[in-house]
């Protein structure tokens, strides 16, 4: 009994310690963002609880930076990316799982090949092509959004995820639908797609998180501040407020709130232990 308590005590201590390490950088950022102007944020010893508690930094950064705009931009980009991924991945995953056709092997290996090539290695020509197609914010905002979304509109990860989902559906489902007079598109849309909803949810969530945090591509293509997504805008705070860490911290915390809410709402998808995610950038 004693041994059991000791074991459980040591396990909890390690996990509590790790959990604290995981959130401490945010706690410290939060603490800094709540400190007033007259409080020294470099004080020794550092004060975790602000002595002069204030929301002034939040009000200040909210007035000087259009965070709402960044948020809306991020929503548009992440939303667009998610919708396109759901549509394109399930469209492409279906024939790869369910049909026999000429060129299937080629299509399969071509898609598989895209997993092996990192975006970072081909980003320069992707940028040149995006420029050529006039999908940049200097043309207009809509073009800018399309340019932000298109290179990530479909991924091999998504296609294979959907293919796996379609593979798991019994053949009889299609046969019954055909007998009932469905055509191939109706089979796909009305019969199969509703059956792969769990996979669609997984794909949507991971695509959303990935797109929401994406930094490299928007920082390459964006030229107008009004088009900034949250990561680009938050990074830009560093230049705007050079050493005003109270503002930088407040802006960073504000930008993090939506994704934390999203994560907590969807947590079962992340921590069920089932995901082999695409979040990793």
């Amino acid at each position: 009994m004693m041994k059991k308590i000791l074991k459980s005590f040591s396990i909890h201590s390690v996990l509590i310690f790790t959990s604290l390490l995981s959130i401490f950088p945010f706690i410290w950022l939060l603490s800094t963002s709540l400190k007033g102007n007259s409080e020294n944020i470099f004080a020794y010893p550092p004060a975790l609880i602000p002595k002069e508690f204030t929301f002034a930094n939040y009000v200040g950064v909210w007035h000087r930076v259009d965070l709402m705009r960044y948020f809306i931009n991020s929503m548009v980009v992440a939303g667009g990316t998610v919708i396109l991924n759901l549509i394109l991945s399930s469209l492409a995953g279906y024939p790869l799982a369910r049909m026999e056709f000429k060129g299937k092997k080629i299509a399969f290996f071509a898609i598989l090949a895209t997993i092996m090539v990192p975006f970072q290695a081909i980003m320069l020509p992707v940028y040149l092509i995006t420029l050529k197609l006039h999908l940049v914010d200097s043309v207009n905002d809509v073009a800018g959004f399309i340019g932000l979304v298109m290179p990530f509109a479909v991924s091999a990860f998504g296609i294979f995820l959907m293919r796996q989902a379609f593979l798991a559906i019994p053949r009889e489902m299609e046969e019954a639908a055909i007998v009932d007079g469905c055509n191939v598109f109706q089979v796909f849309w009305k019969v199969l797609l509703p059956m792969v909803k769990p996979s669609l949810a997984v794909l949507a969530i991971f695509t959303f998180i990935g797109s929401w945090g994406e930094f490299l591509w928007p920082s390459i293509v964006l030229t107008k501040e009004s088009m900034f997504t949250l990561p680009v805008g938050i990074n830009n705070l560093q230049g705007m407020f050079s050493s005003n860490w109270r503002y930088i911290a407040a802006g960073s915390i504000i930008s993090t709130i939506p994704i934390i809410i999203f994560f907590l709402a969807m947590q079962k998808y992340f921590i069920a232990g089932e995901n082999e995610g695409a979040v990793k950038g």
Partner: protein
Amino acid sequence: MFKYYGKWAPHLFLLPAGVILLIFFFIPFFQTIVLSFQDYSNNIYNPSWIGIGNYLGIFKNPVFYKVMLNTFIYLIVAVPVLAIVPLFLAILISQKIRGITVYKILIYLPVIISIVVAAIAFKWLYADQGILNYLLNVLHINSVGWLTDSKYAIYSVIILTIWKGIGYYMMIYLAALMSVPKELYEACDIDGASFLQKHLTVTIPHIMPTIALVTTISSISAMKIFAEIYVMTKGGPLNSTKTIVYYIYEKAFENLDLGYASAMAVILLVVVMIFSLINICCFERNKYQI
């Protein structure tokens, strides 16, 4: 089963994804290779063919070797830590204890946070008069230039990468741990094996493929590090944190030396492809079976 679809139906379904992949993947892929044989450094509007000139230039460039060394440091420090620590945590979490969900959420939190915010949070911890230096001073150690001293900067950035990756790999391990047969553990308990013995003899051999998978995935992501560097150090001080992707970015979008940048991109591509091939052929085979 009877064929209920027309001859071209499969192709129609594949078409939209195919078009996107063609425009934003396959064309750029080949264009990268083509660009790498061209010289843009004299006139960006009128490049000239120089064969393997860019590659020769790269292999004579001391900065490139520095960048490679940095990537190598990243690999040998971050990858083992990310293979071992998350496994240890996953084993602890998979014990039947209270509060698992809370621990999982807290440890996974860094994964979903935008890398930019995480990098800013760490930059603040690393400030010259910041909280980490205060802790060092309490322990009677002199302050360290976490991001300003070329000896330490790369390790400071690596710490961020590790911090942000632990939860992700822990979840992969947790999924793998569920597949270890319970009977094996019961047999261990009957034999009176200790906690350590139990996991060394049962868990580790059983999830070896997952350990290998985590190793290759984290190696690949270590070679793609960019945002951390961009937000925290811009590759400095003295190129000590410059990674290959950051260097490509700098050459391509700041120096507009498109050929040179593309040649480095091809090198990155080859290395990452080797790792990915190992990954797909050895560890994720079942996922990609035709």
